[in-house]
C-alpha cells in the first residue's frame, strides 16, 4: 500500500514538475546568496534593471542566512539542485568550489577586463590563469563615530594612537557614553573589526601579508603581536559585560546613541544611516606616530560566479556580463553604500560617509585581510583561530604573546611556505 502511494506521489510530482518546465517560455535564473539584507535592493532595483534590457530572462534572488549559506550551498551543489548563479566568498572557499568543478571558468567572459588584477585576485587560481567569479564589491575597515557626541565633549578626530586613547579616556571620564561599542561574544567582531582593522598599520599592509605567506615573517614577530597588544588595551573602554555582547547588540548600542565610537566595516553605513538619529563621521585606523604611512583593509569581499551545472549557461553569462558592467556598479554601490565597486570605471557615490571611507584609498595603502589568502587552507584554520584568539586577548584570558604563539604553532603544523 505504502509503496503504491509512494510511487503515485513520486510520479505525480515529477509529471507536474516536467510539464511546468515545458510550458515555461522565459528562462529563470536563480541566484544563491547569503546577503538576505540585500533582498529588497535586488528585487526592486537590480533585477528590474537587468530584465528591462534582457526580455525572456527572469532572475530570482534566493538568499539563505549567512551562517547556513556555505553548508546549504555545498549540499545543493553536490546534489545538483543549486541555483544558476552563485554568490562567491573570497579566496579559498570559492577556489575549492572551482576545483571541485562546481564553478565554471569565466576568464573570457565579456566585461572581465573591467577589473584590475588586484580586484580579480580574490577569485582566481593561485597561478592567476583562471577566473571563476565576477568581483562585485570590497569593504573598508575603520571607525565610525557619533559626531554629536564628539562635538558635545569637544573631541577632535584622532589620527595617532596617542590621540585615539586620549579621546577614549575623555569619553570614559565624562561617563555619558560608552567609549567603544564592541563585544567579544560573536568572536568575529574582535577579529574583523579589531585585529584586521588596526593590524595593517603594524604589519605594513601588503608587505607584511605577502611576507607571512612567503614564510619570511611569523605571527610571533613584533609587528604581528602589536595589534593584539593594542586590542588588550581596549578592554576598559568597552561596555559592561562586553564578553556577552553580540554583534547586533553593538550595532544597537551605537545607533541608539549610547556609544561614541564603533570599530566598523563600511558595510554598516546603509543600516546606520537608517537607524541612527545623530550625525556620523568616520576615521581610518590611527597610525603609531604622526606622519607614518597609513594602511587600510580594503577587502575584496563578494563576487558572483556561474554554477557549472547550470541549465542555462548562456543566459547566466549574459547576467554575469551585466554584473561586470559599470551600470551594475553604479546601482549597486549607491543602493548599498559601503560596498565599494571594484570596477575600474569610477563610480559616483552620493553618500557622504561612504565617500569618506573611499577617500582613504587615496591617502593610505590598501591591503586585504591577512588570513584570507592561502593561510586558511589547513587545519587548524587560521581565520577561525584568529577569531577565537582575538576575543581571548580582549577578554584578557590570553596574553598577546600567547595568542600569537598559538596562531603560529597552528599554522606551522600544516603550512610549509614555498621556499
Amino acid at each position: 500500500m505504502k509503496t503504491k502511494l509512494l510511487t503515485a506521489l513520486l510520479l505525480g510530482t515529477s509529471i507536474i514538475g516536467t510539464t511546468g518546465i515545458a510550458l515555461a517560455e522565459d528562462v529563470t535564473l536563480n541566484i544563491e546568496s547569503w546577503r538576505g539584507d540585500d533582498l529588497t535592493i535586488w528585487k526592486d532595483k537590480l533585477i528590474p534593471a537587468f530584465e528591462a534590457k534582457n526580455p525572456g530572462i527572469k532572475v530570482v534572488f534566493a538568499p539563505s542566512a549567512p551562517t547556513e549559506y556555505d553548508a546549504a550551498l555545498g549540499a545543493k551543489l553536490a546534489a545538483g539542485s543549486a541555483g544558476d548563479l552563485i554568490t562567491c566568498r573570497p579566496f579559498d572557499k570559492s577556489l575549492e568550489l572551482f576545483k571541485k568543478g562546481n564553478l565554471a571558468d569565466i576568464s573570457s567572459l565579456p566585461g572581465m577586463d573591467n577589473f584590475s588584477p588586484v580586484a580579480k585576485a580574490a577569485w582566481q587560481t593561485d597561478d592567476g590563469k583562471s577566473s571563476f567569479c565576477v568581483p562585485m564589491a570590497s569593504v573598508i575597515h575603520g571607525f565610525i563615530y557619533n559626531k554629536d557626541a564628539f562635538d558635545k565633549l569637544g573631541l577632535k578626530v584622532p589620527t595617532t594612537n596617542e590621540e585615539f586613547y586620549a579621546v577614549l579616556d575623555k569619553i570614559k571620564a565624562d561617563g555619558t557614553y560608552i567609549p567603544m561599542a564592541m563585544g567579544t561574544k560573536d568572536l568575529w567582531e574582535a577579529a574583523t573589526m579589531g585585529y584586521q582593522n588596526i593590524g595593517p598599520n603594524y604589519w605594513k599592509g601588503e608587505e607584511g601579508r605577502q611576507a607571512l605567506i612567503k614564510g619570511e615573517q611569523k605571527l610571533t614577530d613584533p609587528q604581528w603581536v602589536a595589534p593584539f597588544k593594542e586590542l588588550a588595551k581596549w578592554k576598559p573602554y568597552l561596555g559592561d559585560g562586553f564578553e556577552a555582547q553580540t554583534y547586533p547588540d553593538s550595532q544597537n548600542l551605537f545607533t541608539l546613541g549610547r556609544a561614541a565610537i564603533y570599530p566598523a566595516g563600511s558595510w554598516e553605513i546603509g543600516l546606520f544611516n537608517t537607524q541612527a538619529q545623530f550625525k556620523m563621521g568616520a576615521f581610518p585606523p590611527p597610525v603609531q606616530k604622526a606622519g607614518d604611512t597609513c594602511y587600510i583593509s580594503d577587502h575584496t569581499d563578494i563576487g558572483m560566479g556561474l554554477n557549472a551545472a547550470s541549465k542555462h549557461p548562456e543566459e547566466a553569462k549574459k547576467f554575469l556580463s551585466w554584473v561586470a558592467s559599470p551600470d551594475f556598479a553604479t546601482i549597486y554601490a549607491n543602493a548599498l553604500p559601503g560596498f565599494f565597486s571594484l570596477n575600474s570605471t569610477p563610480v559616483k557615490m552620493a553618500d557622504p560617509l561612504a565617500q569618506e571611507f573611499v577617500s582613504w584609498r587615496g591617502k593610505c595603502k590598501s591591503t586585504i585581510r591577512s588570513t584570507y589568502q592561502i593561510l586558511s587552507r589547513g587545519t587548524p584554520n587560521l581565520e577561525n583561530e584568529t577569531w577565537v584568539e582575538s576575543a581571548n586577548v580582549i577578554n584578557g584570558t590570553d596574553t598577546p604573546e600567547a595568542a600569537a604563539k598559538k596562531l603560529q604553532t597552528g599554522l606551522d603544523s600544516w603550512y610549509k611556505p614555498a621556499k
Partner: protein
Amino acid sequence: MDTETMAEETRPKRPIRWHVGVFLAPAVLVYTAIMILPLFGTLQLSLFRNIEQHQVFVGLGNFGTLFGDPNWSVNFWNALRNNVWFFIIHMLVQNPIGILLAALLSSPRLRFAAFYRTAIFVPTILSFVIVGFAWKLILSPIWGVAPHLMDFVGLKSFFTAWLGKEQYALTALSLVSVWQFVGIPMMLIYAALLSIPDEVIEAAECDGVTGMAQFWKIKLPLILPSIGIISILTFVGNFNAFDLIYTAQGALAGPNYSTDILGTFLYRAFFGFQLQVGDPNMGAAIATIMFLIILGGVCVYLFLVQTRLRRYQF
C-alpha cells in the same frame, strides 16, 4: 520480509505469520530508504580521504588523525568533556525536576493542573531560534533583563556576562536547555503515573502508606521503566545536541571553544565554517565515533537495564 522467513524457521509448525511482516514493512521501508541508507552512505566516507579531488581508501587513517593529531584530538576531547558535563547537568537537574513536577501534577484533585501542565510544556514546543534569541536577550548585560531581576532580589553582584565567560557559558546553556526540555520527562512520567491503577493506590492507602512514603515505595518502583526511557532519551538527545549551542554561541562555540560539544565540532568539520572548507571524510569519522558512543549507551540500556526492569501489566 526477512522477518517472515525468520519466523518460519523459528516455529516451523506454525503457518507463516504474514501479519508480522505487514506490521513492520511500511516503517522499515521508509526508514531504510530515507534514513539508514543515506546515513551509512555518509558514515562509510570516514574510511576515505579526498586526495586531489579523488576519494582514496585510507582504512582507519582518519580515526588515527582524529585521535593522534593534536589539531583534532585536543578539540575532540574538549568537545567530549563538555558533552559529558552537558549530560550530567541534564540528568541531575532536568530529570529530577521533571519527575517532581509530574508527581505534583498527578496528585488527585489538584486545581489548575491543566493550566500548569500546559504552561510548563510551552518551552518545549518553541524552536531553537526562539529559545536561543530570547535567552541571549535575557542574559545580555546590555539589555539588562537578568541584571534588573537580580537587582530586585538583591543579587545584582552575582550577575556577570555568563554567556561570555569561559567558566560559566556551558553551564548556563545547559540550564537553558534544561529549561526548554523539562516538559519531556514531565509528560512521560506524568503519563506513567496516571496509568497506575487506582486499586494499587487505594490498597496502599488502606495500609496507611500515603504522601511521600507512597511515592517512594509504591509509585516510583512502578514508573522505573519510564525513568529508564527518559534517561536513555536524555543521553541520546544530549550527545546529538547541536542546535541550541549553534543558535546561541555560533558554530565556533565560543568563548574559546568552551561550549563546543560533539554536535558543533562535527558540524564545523563536516560542513566547514567561514574560510574553513568542510571535510566530509573527517566529519564522517567524528560522526562514526559519536554513533559508537551513543550505540554503546543504548546497548547498555537495552541489554543490561531494560531486561532487568520489572514490568507490570495492568
